[in-house]
């Protein structure tokens, strides 16, 4: 469905008045998301996961320079194609609750982008599905708890036209039961034919649903792995960073080797 080849992103910044500086944030990233597949991207903050998501959606600021090739079902992802896909075929679940407008009621924000006739009904159904009571629709984002806002953001992406979801860290801070509901939802959507790019730093959550996992570090994809490779002490994993990531989990050995201090969030 989505194929990315050698994607590099650099930002041009001004240092003082005259000197320009180019900051490279993605280096030759190649990955693929097939039809009906959940692909997870794991990486620490600053590894370029969100930049990748924004690049796919065409949301990067104007000072970003892209090179490489991005395709959607074989077609080159131009600005124009991205504009037609956004909000119809491809949906985005953002990482921060700041992505909700502070001055609009959350129910209305979920209704946006839907056809007028069924917007209210769809919103009610979605709220019901994610355990949000009907009174919540009348509230403003600041009146919701973190977990509730996550669920609202989740609900915005659920349309019956959705064929692809790019979820940028949708899960931090949610209750385990809600996390399970969200992951179940991903699997249900996959059954319905939706492809999902699941960006997260929660390796365990990713392994529960993903068909394939990409590990990102410092703007590069360092490894592509199958969830089945994450067993034991991680012997079948290739890159030492991935192995350390796996071993550092509390469920495993909780060990971090000296030269690889993974910053946990």
């Amino acid at each position, binding site marked *: 469905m989505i194929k990315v080849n050698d994607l590099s992103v650099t930002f041009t910044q001004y240092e003082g008045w005259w000197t320009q500086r180019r900051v490279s944030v993605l280096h030759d990233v190649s990955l693929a998301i097939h039809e009906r597949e959940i692909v997870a991207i794991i990486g620490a903050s600053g590894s370029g996961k969100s930049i990748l998501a924004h690049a796919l959606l065409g*949301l990067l600021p104007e000072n970003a320079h892209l090179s490489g090739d991005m395709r959607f079902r074989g077609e080159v992802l131009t600005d124009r194609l991205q504009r037609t896909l956004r909000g119809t075929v491809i949906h985005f679940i953002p990482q*921060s609750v700041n992505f909700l*407008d502070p001055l*609009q009621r959350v129910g209305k924000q979920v209704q946006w*982008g839907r056809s007028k006739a069924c917007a209210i009904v769809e919103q009610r159904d979605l709220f019901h599905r994610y355990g949000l009571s009907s009174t919540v629709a009348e*509230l403003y984002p600041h009146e919701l*708890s973190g977990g509730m806002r996550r669920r609202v953001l989740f609900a915005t992406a659920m349309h019956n036209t959705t064929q692809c979801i790019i979820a940028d860290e949708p899960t931090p801070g949610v209750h385990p039961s809600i996390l399970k509901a969200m992951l179940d939802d991903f699997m249900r959507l996959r059954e319905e034919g939706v492809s999902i790019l699941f960006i997260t730093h929660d390796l365990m959550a990713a392994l529960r649903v993903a068909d394939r996992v990409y590990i990102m570090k410092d703007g590069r994809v360092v490894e592509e792995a199958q969830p089945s490779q994450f067993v034991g002490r991680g012997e079948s994993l290739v890159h030492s960073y991935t192995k350390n990531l796996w071993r550092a989990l509390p469920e495993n050995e909780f060990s971090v080797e000296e030269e690889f201090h993974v910053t946990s969030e």
Partner: protein
Amino acid sequence: MKEMIYTVMRGGSLLFGLSVLTFTLVYYSPVDPIQAYIGGGTYMTEDQRQQLEEKWGLNDHPVQQYVRWATALLGGDFGQSTIYQRPVSTLIQERAGATLLLMTVAWTVSGLFGFTLGVWAAVSRGRMIDRLIRWYSYIQASVPTFWLGLLLLMIFSVYLQWFPVGLSAPPGKLLANVTWGDRLYHLWLPALTLSVIGTAQVTLHTREKMINVLESDYVLFAKARGASTGQIVKRHGLKNAVLPALMLHFSYVGELFGGSVLAEQVFSYPGLGAMVTEAGLKADVPLLLGIVLCSSVFVFIGNVCADFLKQWIDPRTKKRVSYDAIE
């Protein structure tokens, strides 16, 4: 309810402080009220002068003078204007309407116009139209009211003769015969002057705020959901940018009054502004204090409106049920 009492108390203390300050300033000013009253050419014996001083109570202690005035004020008596020899309250009543009309028109027009320009500039940021709007705003912000007034007067009244040179109604016409058409015809130029003067601030602030909004995460998300620029401005921009603009514009009421003093002077528009200048120059203390208090009420009401509107528009400043009650 508690807030209302607090607001009234705030207003009361403001008026008290202001009255003391103005009284002190006038008391220590070099203008001699008796000399100002009788005018330069008239001769007065020392005896007559003392009699007048006695009559006006000018020899009493200043605190005594203030208390006498303030007590009368609480009973609704603003005192007698020394230059007009008529009650201050009547004079203010006669003039306040004209000024209020002028200020309301100027405030509304400059607000709407300024906000629209600001939004337009922000949406087309970096392009030619944005540069033009900013360029216009900077120039306009540095133009003094009286100069613009004179310029408009020259162009529209003297050369083109579209509008009258001054006053708020045709001279020689009885007050009863003055129509709203006459009033608007005379209001046009001073209102235009004040409206133009008031736009730059709103425009530039709205532009800044709107740019912030357009760079916000929620606008990025709206784009990701396929919203067009028009939808983004309508859904997110207006509501998020109108609040700072409104707050700013309400606090501008005070400045607007200052501007209307100048504009009224230039256009000989008989409002409070023209009268306050006269009262100041001729040391008419009761009239001056009366107008100062009256105008501070205008400004205070403006600020109270701003507070009220903020609560109404921005849900974050409202007290509402917390999520604990629902979840």
